[in-house]
């Protein structure tokens, strides 16, 4: 126990929350001291989000007690929680994009009830920002701010509303390395001022560098609370606790444990890889995908792509990194035929792809595994069979005149379920009942079934646990080994470094540079600058 005070800022005792068929939180004990940065770790589905939702009053626990600053409390809702000084900064910010920072803050105010003195709020925010070194312009419209600025605004908002207990849900997921460093500095300062900070993450490196203690959740239980001293082997210990077994080499890579060794050797190629190596034969033939001066006009809600040029060769994984919302989605959708192209050319081998519809592209050998699994790649309400035949229900082999041959579809699905070991109760139940990992497997099974020449993948492991992530990566590697060209669009820099043969950086719809996927500090700093729009001269 760290010895600052005897009264913890937050103390959760025996918190239990059940959902139909799952115990999301199983008698969890958790406490945070004032002035402490306490990390909350666990895989997806371990119960982190549920615990935080209980802490901010979104859920009521079925059992257990909440003490805030030694006082037993019942939180009746988010407004109640903020009134008692608990603030949560979400991973996907809950700010209204077409209002200013000050207006957003005023939205959360309960008093005074009817009078709004926006100027006062603006002045206060400015002062508060200066005090905590969280600079944000209160007059700025939120939608025009960068992700880092929005996050600062969000933190300021909860501070202004009186939070002394601050929980941050995966705060670094969308930040550039530079912004991450800035955030950490601000958090350390807040802790020094006596705020209690709960830092939710699954990035071990960040956790050990920032937090004093870490509580690890697994399967709804708090398996351990560790004092972090910076010992070597600490990360391995946490990893073991998180996944409940000795991390094998694949899991270690997923957790970012193996990459360090690679970084010290500075040379990725000579490092033995657990994946079959494949890119050797790649450079001989011409590129699979050749994009030249591609421009895509975004609409009100999306960004534009301006004059983007790159290529992906067979057997090569090219990663595209950047802060979310810089045109990644539009680029992916343009390549998949879902977004109209303004100018420029997209070539698959010798075939021009612009102007073709998604089905024609798919027939030519373009697979698309979108980030939004249930909203684009699959339909939540359709059963697995319907989802499985989405791409080729219209083919001759699948049909008898205008009728769909269901027995063929069922056989295909049975094969895919076996091949990809998709855990499924009833294949004729709606897809929304499947876990993220199984959905991704189903999506991959369908998209990879036809041995595509080009695979466009966006954030393929978002929301997946370590095991499923490793599986997805191995499938992509397998496709790469079979000669597919893979264009990988990711926000998680670690994942990009792990998989890619080359890295492209995107900023405001333009590719600002190409870098090797190396983990050394200079390279990371370089990537960070490119992601933030600096150093455009490289290309």
């Amino acid at each position: 126990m760290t010895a600052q005070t005897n009264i913890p800022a937050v103390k959760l005792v025996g918190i239990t929350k059940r959902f139909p068929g799952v115990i999301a939180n199983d008698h969890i004990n958790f406490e945070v001291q004032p002035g402490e940065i306490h990390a909350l770790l666990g895989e997806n589905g371990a119960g982190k989000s549920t615990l935080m939702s209980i802490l901010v009053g979104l859920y009521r626990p079925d059992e257990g007690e909440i003490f805030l600053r030694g006082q037993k409390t019942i939180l009746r809702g988010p407004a109640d929680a903020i009134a008692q000084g608990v603030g949560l900064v979400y991973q996907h910010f809950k700010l209204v994009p077409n209002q200013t920072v000050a207006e957003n803050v005023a939205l959360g105010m309960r008093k005074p009830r009817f009078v709004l003195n926006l100027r006062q709020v603006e002045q206060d925010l400015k002062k508060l920002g200066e005090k905590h070194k969280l600079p944000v312009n209160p007059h700025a419209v939120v939608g025009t701010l960068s992700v880092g600025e929005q996050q600062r605004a969000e933190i300021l908002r909860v501070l202004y509303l009186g939070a002394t207990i601050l929980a941050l849900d995966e705060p670094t997921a969308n930040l550039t390395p530079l912004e991450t460093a800035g955030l950490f500095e601000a958090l350390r300062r807040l802790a020094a001022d006596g705020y209690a900070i709960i830092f939710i993450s699954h990035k071990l490196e960040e956790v050990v560098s920032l937090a004093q203690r870490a509580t690890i959740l697994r399967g709804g239980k708090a398996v351990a609370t560790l004092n972090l001293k910076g010992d070597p082997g600490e990360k391995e210990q946490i990893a073991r606790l998180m996944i409940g077994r000795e991390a094998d080499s694949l899991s270690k890579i997923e957790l970012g444990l193996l990459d360090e060794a690679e970084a010290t050797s500075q040379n990725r190629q000579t490092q033995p890889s657990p994946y079959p190596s494949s890119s050797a034969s790649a450079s001989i033939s011409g590129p699979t995908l050749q994009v030249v001066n591609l421009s895509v006009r975004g609409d009100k809600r999306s960004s534009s792509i301006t004059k983007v040029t790159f290529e992906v060769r067979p057997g090569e994984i090219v990663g595209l990194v950047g802060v979310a919302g810089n045109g990644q989605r539009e680029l992916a959708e343009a390549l998949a035929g879902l977004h109209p192209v303004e100018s420029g050319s997209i070539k698959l081998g010798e075939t021009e792809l612009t102007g073709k519809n998604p089905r024609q592209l798919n027939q030519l050998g373009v697979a698309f595994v979108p980030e939004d699994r249930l909203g684009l790649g699959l339909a939540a309400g359709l059963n697995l069979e319907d989802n499985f035949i989405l791409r080729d229900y219209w083919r001759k082999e699948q049909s008898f005149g205008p009728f769909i041959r269901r027995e063929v579809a069922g056989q295909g699905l049975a094969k895919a379920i076996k091949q990809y070991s998709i855990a499924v109760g009833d294949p004729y139940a709606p897809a929304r009942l499947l876990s993220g990992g199984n959905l991704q497997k189903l999506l991959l099974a369908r998209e990879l079934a036809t041995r595509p020449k080009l695979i466009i993948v966006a954030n393929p492991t978002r929301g997946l646990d370590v095991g499923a992530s490793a599986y997805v990566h191995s499938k992509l590697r397998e496709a790469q080994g079979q000669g597919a060209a893979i264009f990988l669009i990711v926000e998680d820099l670690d994942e990009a470094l792990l998989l890619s043969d080359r890295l492209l950086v995107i900023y405001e719809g333009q590719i600002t540079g190409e870098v090797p996927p190396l983990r050394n500090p200079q390279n990371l700093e370089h990537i960070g600058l490119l992601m933030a729009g600096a150093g455009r001269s490289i290309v």
Partner: protein
Amino acid sequence: MSLKERLENELEIQKAVNSPRLKRQFDPFGLAIGIAAPLIAILIALLLTGLILLISGKDIFLIFGEMFRSAYIDNFAETIVKAIPLTLTGLAVAVAFRARLWNIGAEGQFYAGVLCATGLALAFPGWPALLIVPAMLAAAMLGGALWAFVPAILRATLEVNEIISSLMLNYVALLLTDYFIFGPWRDPKGFNFPVTATFSDAARLPIVIEDTRIHLGLIFALVAILIIWLVLGRTQWGFELKVMGENLNTARYAGIKVTRNIVIAFVLSGALAGLAGMSEVTGVAGRLQQGISPGYGYTAIIIAWLARLNPWAIGLVAVLFGGLVSSGFTMQRIGVSSGLVTFLQGTILFCVLAGESLSRRLLYLRALQRHS
């Protein structure tokens, strides 16, 4: 690879290909809920209606008893007559609903069909049945389709909300009908009543069951059920509509021509409603008069919903609601406002919608439990 390995590999593939078809899990609970929910909804609606009757001091057992006897025993043939347009309009909205297109305009499309059929019947009184009936059929379906084409094309190209546009067109169709029967089509021998002249015998659908008013429209309805069932449930196009109904973005991703399908689904929907109008005006009335539809196009929405878009179930539910419509006259005879029937219908819709989301939630929670 050695020969043995190759053979084993081949066997493995064969096994995978021949692996037994995935079994649909039989879920008695789900089935029970699926059947029970609408029944309970109807029961609650009856209770609520009964409550109103009780408050106004009526004998509810007498009234409901009379209603039931009149609808399903004494005048069952009349119930079937009413079920014909209800089935056809019910199928009409179901086609659109399948793609989550809200065709609230079946009433207007029904009237468009009525107008087209009437126009032909009045213009060519000398044509034989073999000529005039197919002509009216085609014209009515075309008319309904055209009426539906307006909201369809607006929705598909400009994303105009089809609920509003299709609903508004109902009034246009209704008023257009009034114009014709008060104006150019008014029967000169009709003592100034707003009715058209009676159609020629050739232009009237033949009765298919003697001593009743059940006409050829019954066959239209049964054939339509069969066709729509095949189209929605078995064909590629039906599958496309289903995907569109679930998620338009996924539909685009799958290469489905969304814009085209919106228009086709809507137009097919309108054609069915137009057919309903033709069958009603030529099969029952034999002339066009005011209020030829007691709101078939609106009741159709309740029917399609209650039947969960299943064409066969639509036929059944249409008979149920046909009874409600046909018993309205009996109600008046025993001194209850025929508005009671409309009230009952509305209450049923409310209860069904509530039951629908409740049972969906129940099934979802249960499925969650079974899967984890």
